[in-house]
């Protein structure tokens, strides 16, 4: 048992650092500093992901046969720590970290060849069609119908909370192919081209207030959308099985390094904000106390993830523990973003609608706040989603409790 890196691991860390220094360029950095949610605009996002792909680092969790980098758990940890510490953009998960695993496990050979390379290289962007207006956490109650008509399914219904649907070339979605069967067993997993006639997008402006075209979530409407049967994953009616596989899949994302990055942001704020009593916030004892409380929570998450992921091989599902990490990770994301807002004090109030305006060459907005305050309050608003999406934190606690009770040989 030891925490030390081997010489090889140290060399790898240096390689990652050197690469980031060169690849994470000034333009990307400026975009990221104005980001309200950790994503760039589409162009920036694609630019970043293609750089990763060119280096062979786009998909740390993928098996080597599909283009994964063949890293040890420690290498993956190092890569993630270094990119997060540098404040690099999030990699959009819908393709690389979600549908790709389902295609690898359950897709046909033709599907693998058709989709995986373009996912790996971000030649095609994906979105996820799970939730519906009436089916959120209770996903199995979804209603979107897919009726077989020759070698097509005809889709009718609506999907909601679809992240970056406006950027997507493809959507993977759960549809109901059988209304007789009980909830879970009538569901099928389909891939649909977003340009198929009958799909329309309505943007859902959210609390953090992005301008239209850059909103994070959307509602989709499907009207007689014809999807070829060849775009079905696996068997008809087994979609729930595939979705469950994906839901508990190790997504390669530990939270620790992102949380450390948020702590660094807060330290920067505190080094530049004045304290009420004169001096700087970073010397204010109340700030320091609250910082320490949150930082210790981050240390604890990070330690638990380090211990857990250091023994998890690439491409394996991690089960109930993913609920625990989702809980503590998102609760800390929220707590840190809240603390950042409080650290800003009165600078939390001004609101900038189009945070990328300057980058786009539009007139920069009036922004009477220092750079360190940009997008901090919107991030707090945005992060409210983290305890809701991907299974609300209430659901995660239900799942974790089941694990805790069953681990003791008893059931709740």
């Amino acid at each position: 048992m030891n925490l030390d890196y081997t010489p090889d691991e140290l060399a790898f860390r240096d390689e990652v650092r050197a690469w980031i220094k060169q690849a994470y360029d000034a333009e990307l950095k400026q975009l990221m500093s104005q980001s309200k949610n950790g994503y760039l605009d589409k162009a920036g996002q694609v630019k970043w992901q293609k750089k990763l792909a060119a280096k062979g680092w786009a998909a740390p969790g993928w098996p080597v046969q599909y283009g994964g980098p063949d890293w040890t758990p420690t290498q993956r940890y190092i890569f993630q720590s270094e990119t997060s510490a540098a404040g690099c953009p999030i990699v959009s998960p819908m393709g690389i970290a979600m549908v790709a695993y389902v295609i690898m496990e359950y897709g046909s050979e033709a599907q693998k060849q058709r989709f995986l390379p373009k996912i790996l290289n971000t030649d095609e962007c994906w979105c996820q069609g799970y939730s519906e207006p009436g089916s959120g956490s209770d996903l199995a109650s979804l209603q979107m119908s897919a009726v077989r008509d020759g070698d097509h399914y005809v889709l009718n219904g609506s999907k909601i909370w679809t992240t970056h649907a406006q950027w997507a070339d493809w959507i993977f979605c759960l549809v109901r192919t059988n209304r007789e069967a009980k909830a879970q067993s009538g569901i099928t997993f389909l891939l649909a081209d977003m340009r198929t006639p009958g799909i329309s997008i309505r943007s859902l402006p959210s609390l953090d207030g992005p301008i239209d075209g850059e909103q994070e979530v959307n509602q989709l409407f499907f009207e007689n959308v014809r999807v070829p049967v060849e775009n079905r994953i696996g068997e008809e009616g087994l979609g729930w099985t595939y979705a469950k596989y994906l839901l508990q899949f190790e997504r390669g994302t530990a939270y620790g390094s992102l949380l450390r990055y948020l702590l660094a942001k807060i330290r920067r704020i505190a080094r530049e904000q004045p304290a009420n009593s004169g001096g700087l916030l970073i010397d204010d004892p109340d700030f320091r106390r609250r910082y320490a409380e949150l930082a210790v929570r981050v240390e604890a998450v990070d330690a638990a993830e380090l211990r857990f992921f250091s023994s998890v091989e690439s491409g394996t599902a991690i089960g109930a523990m993913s609920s625990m990490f989702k809980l503590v990770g998102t609760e800390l994301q929220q707590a840190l973003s809240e603390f950042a807002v409080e650290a800003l004090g009165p600078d939390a109030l001004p609101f900038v609608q189009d945070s990328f305006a300057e980058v786009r060459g539009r007139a920069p907005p009036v922004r009477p706040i220092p750079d360190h305050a940009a997008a901090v309050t919107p991030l707090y608003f945005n992060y409210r989603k983290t305890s809701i999406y991907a299974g609300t934190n209430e659901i995660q606690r239900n799942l974790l409790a089941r694990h805790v009770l069953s681990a003791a040989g008893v059931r709740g």
Partner: protein
Amino acid sequence: MDFDYSVEQNLLRDTLASYLADHYDFETRRAAVAAPAGWRPKIWADLAERLNLLGAPFPEEFGGLGGGAVENAIVMEELGKALVVEPYLGTVVIGGGLLKQAGGALAAQWLPRVIAGEVVLAFAGAERQARYDLGQVATTATPRNGGYVLDGRKTGVTGGPWASHFLVTARTGAGLSLLLVDAQAEGITRSDYPTIDGGRASDLVFEQVLVPADRLLGAEGGALPLVERVADEAVCALCAEAVGAMRRMLAETVVYASQRKQFGAPLASFQVLQHRMADMFTALEQSAALTLVATMKLDRPADERALAASAAKAQVDKAAKFVGESAVQIHGGMGITEELSLGHYFRRCTAIAAQFGNADFHLRRYADLSLAAA
């Protein structure tokens, strides 16, 4: 000891609530806030003329209704329920409150104009280097030709774009002073910006701005006690506004949880959500009570007044955060969109938490006052 509203107070609340129900629906408000102006002068005129509301906390000698801080709290709670952006806080609570304290010719001349809705006031007290400490002022007012020349910068002037006059704190030789300054006066540069709650604010630069001597509130160098008191009045008013917002957030959550089904049962049937709503209720009830207590203590000696105001703000900020975050969580995805009013209450409460001292500021102040006395 008596916690009951008087007949007049109940009438005041009902009149305002009924007006807002008819004229301040959420969709219209949302459109107004998104438009360039950001507010509706017609609403303001109605509050003044139709409802005679702007006189609620002022003595009858000025044309007011003879009320005080409790009336402000009643009004602010209703404004909070309807997400009203029009500047009652800046004009009536703070501006009018300072004039009332200052008294004399200035009050006699200006309070009737406030009550009539002829002027819109905005408080220019905050400076960037001072965070929440209103006593830390670098702006100067230099006596010249029987008046003052104002130089300096103010930030976070809520309602700045709408104001006809600013109440500006500035250092004179004698200490902190307070001036009533025409918004159009030469030498003022205003940068306007939207705020996270749908409001508008400004940063101001004063360069050699001439202010007549009769625009001084109170004694020269004697503004600090006035400002400290009015800040506590603003704190209590903001707390009342947040209580109004919390009431709506809880009510909407209860309704949503009772109607929305997951796993074949209403959300309201899940025990963890029940307990969360019980805790929201508790947070709200305690906030409402402590706000009332602090409001009633605004006339007590400065330390007692300040202790109660700081306690209320710390409690209300925490409660509003809890109620807001819980309401969003129980609403799920819907809670995050701009389409429900819920998110707008949440944003307003986030803004309130950052105004006139956040919880950190008030907890420190509470500790200093209560442990000094210990």
